[in-house]
Each structure stands twice: as structure tokens, then as C-alpha cells.
């Protein structure tokens, strides 16, 4: 059984894992009917509703159980879920360890059919009443589970379309907003992890689904409009764009001069990560109101903020450490290598015998990145605590240029040639020394060459392998003193700082005995003062007991 990890908090530090059955990865399904299973678990039977055979609530999903047949029962009065007041369907019981096979459909255009068909359950794919779909290209993860709500247990499909969003599509019952006759994906509620019971058999009473994430995402508001577009160029598209910007076609040269395409280019940069994106549906890049064809399907970045997993290192004292004072400051110093943010010191006392976690948040628009460092204290091993945040920038800017001269460089060369008295037929720019000033601007970039980007780069982009690492400088025992087992401990013991009866100790013992204690123990008059002093002195220097 596979898992999907969701988080209780917007900082993504408290994960919840839902045990569900999933397909391994996007693309593991093929056109046509696919099958996955949900296995019941927990102490209670999981109750869900089926749409089978109901007009008006058709579904592209069908379900069968294995090994036991479905048990049908109509909801009694008062049991009708509030979410579907027109409910007519059946209650089906799936018992623990019973397998439920769910069939879902992906059409030849690689669209996963997710919504309600206003037709009967014998779905007619391709009909005029085609169900709502989700392009499989946009789906990052797909899984099935059981959503337990106050009165209804539902088998649901969870679609993860971005790093931080996860939509829940109820297979049974399908979401109904009470107003429209046709279900639309946009009306599908985002469900918080707290709303999930999954296969753990836990109930959540009366929780209202809420948007799962709260973060900056201006891109989702700008997409499709006339404002800012953020594309992830695919292989060959930059070359296609360049061929358009530096076309030798005189008409295109003139168009470039008039439209100044670089004015519409705000930034071109490389990022180490691959952002979430959606297909534009065409092959173009929009620049200043003009669509430049780049020869293949283009993609818009749909989530401005990219966040990584929480990368973790546990530091159990019993594993590879001495389990002594040598495991703590100042005997160990720790440094955390954070790509683009630097190498930062870490207080080893906070993470020793605990855990260290690092998560990156990257702004696709600017390349600004923030490394959030968390730790788990050994005395509170269940909760991540924020240690600190470190900032940097991971964008490597690409200078992009365009010929915006309209071909007038040639005119400039000719006029330069005329200045030095050369014939207009001579077209070699190298000769037109007198015309050089008309070609090159003061910055060294030709005057009529549009350019964005910079030659000044983040030096941190030069660092190699982009790995997050923890470096420890430790002080270890010299093994020379340990040529036999615990020799140092046997010969002269180790620091104790405890109080107890001498009979409780074995081996080397050094410490302080109070005179009144030894007098009371030995008995009055039984030992001379000199003998008592000798006993006290002997333990002060160390005695083997």
C-alpha cells in the first residue's frame, strides 16, 4: 500500500501520511479503463455511496468489490447526507481488508475523467455530455482513499496538481454544490489533511474543507491574461525564439524594430528545480501582445512558489557518536551547507540525539530562495521546531538579445563609408572604421540590439552539486589509550559527580568521605584518628572497591 503525505500546517512541518493504494506515478495509466484498489482497514466498516445505475449522477467510475459482494441498503430517513439532498443512491459496505476495485477512465487525449456525467452510469465517453476532465499532464500524483466526514464516508480520488495543492474529487458521492447541474472541477473543494481519514479509520467530526495551502501565487491570477507570463521553455524553444529575434527576414527585422520584443522580456533565468506548470494549449510565447511561435507546446508556470520536501537527518546518539560529553559543544561544531544561502553554523546541542530538517522555498519569478531549517529536540521528538531561515538567490540569468535595428545597421555602415569616402558598394563592416560609432553603443552593446539579462551573476550558482549537507567537526577519544577495553576507565575512572554508598560502586572509586560519616560507619573508638584519616586520604586519591 502506498502513501501520500499531506501536512497539517502551512509550514509543512507536521506531515500526515495517508495509507492508500495508488498508481505508482503519473503516466502509469493508459488510455481506457484503469483499475486501482482501496483496501478497507480500521475497526469500523467503511461506508460509502455508489452511483451505480442512477440517472443524473452518472460517473465515469465503476466499482466492484472483492471478494465479497456489495451489500446494498438505501439510506434511512435522516441519514441522507446534507451534501447531496437529492441522494437516491445506495449505501455500500466495505469491510476491513475487503478490496474495492475502482475503475477510472483516461481518454485518448490523456485526460482523466473526474467529474459527473449528466447521463447514466453506462458512461459514454465522447458524448456531448463529456465529463469534466483534468489533463493528465497536470497531474503530479493521483491516489484513492476514503474520506471520512461527519455522516458520510466517501471513496475519493485525490489529485495533486501542484506542489502545495491537492484536490479531492469524490467518487462517491460526487461533489454537488446544490446549484449547478453539472459538476465542474473548479467547484471541487480543496480538502485539508485534517479532513482525511484515509484508511486509518479515524473520524473527523464536522470539519469544513479549506484551501490546503496559503501562499503567494500571483501567477495563478495572471495566467491567461495580458499581464505577466512565466514560461518554462522546453528543449529547442529558446533557439526557436532566438531565430525569431535575430531573423534575417527583412520584414521580421522591421517588425522587431517596431515592436521591440526585448521590452516585453522581463527576465530569463535558469533555476535548479523544475517548477509546476500547465500547458498553454498552443506553441507560442506572448511578448508585447504578439505570439511568437517556438515550434512546440509551451508551458506556463502555475505556482509561483516551489517548495521541496523536508530533508531530514536524524542524529541518534547511539549511532556513530560517543554518547558522552564529546557529542556536544564545544567538542563538536556543526555547519550546514545550504546551496545558494551559504554554509551556516548549527548549534549541535539542539540537534544531537534529535533531528535536523531543511526545506527550501523558491520564488520561480525572481529566483529568491529561502532555506527553512528545523530541528527536533531529543526531549520532544514528535514536533519540528523552526531553527532559523536563510535567504539567497538561485537564479542564473541569461542574457537574451534581439535585433531591433530594423536593418538600419546596414544603413549606418553605408553612411559611415560615405564619410570616409568609400563607395557604397563596399559592404565590409570591418573597413567602415569611420562608421563604427554608429554601430556600437557606449556600453559595448550595439545600439539597436535589444537585450535583457546581465553578465553579473550569482556566484553561488557556481557551487557544484546542489546538495544539502551537514558537516560535523568532532573531537574523538584517542584510541591509543584504549588498547584494551576501557583501559582509561579501569585505571583512573571517569567523571561521576554522584553521591552514594561505597557498596554501590565497583572498580575504581575516587571521592570525598566526610569524617563524621566514616566515624559513624566504623564505630566510635574502633579506629584511631590516624587510621580514619588514612581511609579518607586513600579515597581522595582513588581506591579500587
Amino acid at each position, binding site marked *: 500500500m502506498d502513501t501520500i503525505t499531506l501536512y497539517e500546517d502551512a509550514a509543512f512541518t507536521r506531515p500526515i501520511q495517508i495509507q492508500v493504494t495508488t498508481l505508482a506515478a503519473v503516466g502509469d495509466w493508459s488510455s481506457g479503463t484503469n483499475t486501482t484498489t482501496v483496501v478497507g482497514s480500521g475497526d469500523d466498516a467503511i461506508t460509502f455511496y455508489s452511483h451505480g445505475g442512477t440517472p443524473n449522477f452518472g460517473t465515469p467510475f465503476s466499482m466492484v468489490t472483492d471478494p465479497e459482494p456489495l451489500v446494498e441498503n438505501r439510506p434511512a430517513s435522516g441519514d441522507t447526507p446534507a451534501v447531496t439532498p437529492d441522494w437516491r443512491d445506495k449505501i455500500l459496505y466495505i469491510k476491513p481488508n475487503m478490496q474495492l476495485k475502482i475503475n477510472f477512465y483516461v481518454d485518448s487525449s490523456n485526460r482523466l475523467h473526474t467529474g459527473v456525467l449528466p447521463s447514466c452510469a453506462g458512461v459514454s465517453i465522447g458524448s456531448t455530455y463529456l465529463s469534466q476532465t483534468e489533463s493528465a499532464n497536470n497531474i503530479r500524483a493521483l491516489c484513492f482513499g476514503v474520506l471520512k466526514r461527519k455522516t458520510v464516508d466517501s471513496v475519493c480520488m485525490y489529485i495533486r496538481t501542484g506542489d502545495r495543492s491537492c484536490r479531492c474529487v469524490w467518487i462517491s458521492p460526487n461533489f454537488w454544490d446544490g446549484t449547478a447541474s453539472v459538476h465542474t472541477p473548479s467547484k471541487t473543494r480543496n480538502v485539508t489533511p485534517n479532513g482525511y481519514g484515509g484508511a486509518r479509520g479515524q473520524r473527523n467530526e464536522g470539519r469544513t474543507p479549506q484551501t490546503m495551502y496559503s501562499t503567494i501565487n500571483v501567477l495563478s491570477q495572471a495566467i491567461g491574461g495580458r499581464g505577466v507570463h512565466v514560461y518554462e521553455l522546453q528543449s529547442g524553444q529558446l533557439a526557436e525564439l532566438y531565430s525569431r529575434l535575430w531573423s534575417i527576414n527583412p520584414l521580421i527585422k522591421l517588425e522587431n524594430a517596431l515592436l521591440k520584443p526585448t521590452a516585453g522580456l522581463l527576465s530569463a533565468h535558469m533555476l535548479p528545480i523544475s517548477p509546476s506548470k500547465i500547458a498553454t494549449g498552443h506553441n507560442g*510565447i506572448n511578448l508585447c501582445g504578439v505570439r511568437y511561435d517556438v515550434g512546440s507546446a509551451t508551458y506556463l508556470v502555475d505556482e509561483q512558489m516551489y517548495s521541496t520536501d523536508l530533508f531530514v537527518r536524524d542524529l541518534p546518539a547511539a549511532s556513530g557518536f560517543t554518547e558522552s560529553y564529546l557529542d556536544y559543544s564545544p567538542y563538536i561544531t556543526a555547519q550546514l551547507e545550504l546551496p545558494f544561502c551559504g554554509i551556516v553554523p548549527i548549534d549541535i546541542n539542539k540537534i544531537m540525539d534529535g533531528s535536523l530538517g531543511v526545506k527550501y522555498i523558491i520564488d520561480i519569478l525572481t529566483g529568491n530562495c529561502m532555506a527553512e531549517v528545523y530541528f527536533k529536540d531529543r526531549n520532544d521528538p514528535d514536533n519540528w521546531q523552526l531553527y532559523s531561515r536563510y535567504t539567497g538567490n538561485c537564479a542564473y540569468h541569461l542574457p537574451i538579445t534581439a535585433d531591433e535595428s530594423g536593418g538600419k545597421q546596414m544603413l549606418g555602415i553605408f553612411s559611415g563609408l560615405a564619410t570616409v569616402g568609400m563607395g557604397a558598394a563596399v559592404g565590409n563592416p570591418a573597413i567602415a572604421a569611420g562608421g563604427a560609432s554608429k554601430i556600437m553603443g557606449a556600453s559595448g552593446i550595439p545600439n539597436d540590439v535589444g537585450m535583457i539579462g546581465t553578465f553579473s551573476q550569482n556566484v553561488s550558482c557556481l557551487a557544484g552539486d546542489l*546538495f544539502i549537507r551537514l558537516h560535523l567537526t568532532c573531537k574523538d577519544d584517542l584510541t591509543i589509550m584504549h588498547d584494551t577495553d576501557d583501559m582509561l576507565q579501569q585505571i583512573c575512572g571517569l567523571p561521576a559527580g554522584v553521591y552514594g554508598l561505597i557498596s554501590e560502586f565497583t572498580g575504581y572509586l575516587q571521592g570525598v568521605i566526610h569524617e563524621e560519616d566514616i566515624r559513624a560507619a566504623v564505630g566510635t573508638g574502633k579506629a584511631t584518628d590516624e587510621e580514619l584519616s588514612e581511609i579518607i586520604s586513600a579515597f581522595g586519591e582513588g581506591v579500587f572497591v
Partner: protein
Amino acid sequence: MTIHVYNTPTAPDHLVKDISTVISPSPDGWSGAVRGEISIEHPVIEVEALITVGNYCYIPDFGRYYWIVDKNVIRRELTELTLKSDPLMSFADSIKACKIIASRSGQQGDLYGSPGFNSYLSDPMHPIVQTTTSMDLRGQNGAEASLGVLSGGAYTWNQNPILVTVG
């Protein structure tokens, strides 16, 4: 008085000595006598025997164990022993019932009350050297902690540039 002579291999800084090697006749020991006044801590005893071995003894009448620090053979069956009391062995049982504030111990303590050394206290007697080690962080399912894109088994930069445009 009776004296029992032993040969002990145990060092003086041990609480209990090994007296399994008995020199004097067992179980009665040898007969000894004192001449004049003696110190109970540093007695000189004449023993009716030729004693050439043995470094430890017990005198029941004094209730003490002694180190034999010197032996003088007076005549064939008479040896003068110069003794020094060993209060550790002599009062071992009482000492064990005494309390101590232990600064160092060869026994490891634990959380359940057994006293002993605490490895988390720094020890100036410990010679130490410096080493450096690097540790990887891991993501879900053991994924390596890299910001790059996994391609061909290695993490690289995303080769697809980001283009921000207007209009």
C-alpha cells in the same frame, strides 16, 4: 597472641586484599608475642617461627590486618615482624556502609539509580583528537537532499530556462 601470615598480590589501594595464599599454619596460625609497649597501628611482633615469605598478616587480638614492612630473624625459630596497619582491609565492611561523594568512578551509572560515571561530564584526563565528517540529509523515500533535477542518475540544473514576459 595468634598471627596469620599471608602473601597477597593485591596493591595497597584496593579495599579488599586477596589473602588466599596463607603462609602460616592453618587454621591456628603462629604464636607471637610483644615486648614492652607497642603501637596498635605500627606493632613489632616476635613470632615463633622462621618467616622469610609473606607480606601481609592478620592479628585477631587487634582486629586488624597489617602490612609486613620488615622481617628480622632473631634466631632459627624466632622472627621479629614490623607491621603497619591496613585500615582499608581492617574496616572494609564498615567502609562499604559509608557514603561518598564520588568524583570519579570506573563503574557506569544509569538512570535507574545505580551510581557511577557520567559520560556527559567533560574529562580533562581524556586525550582527544579532531576529526571531520559529513552527513547527508534525506527526503521522503530516502531521496537525496538536492535542489537539482535528477537526470541520468545525477542531479543537475533544470535545463529548461524560465522566461518572464509581459503583454
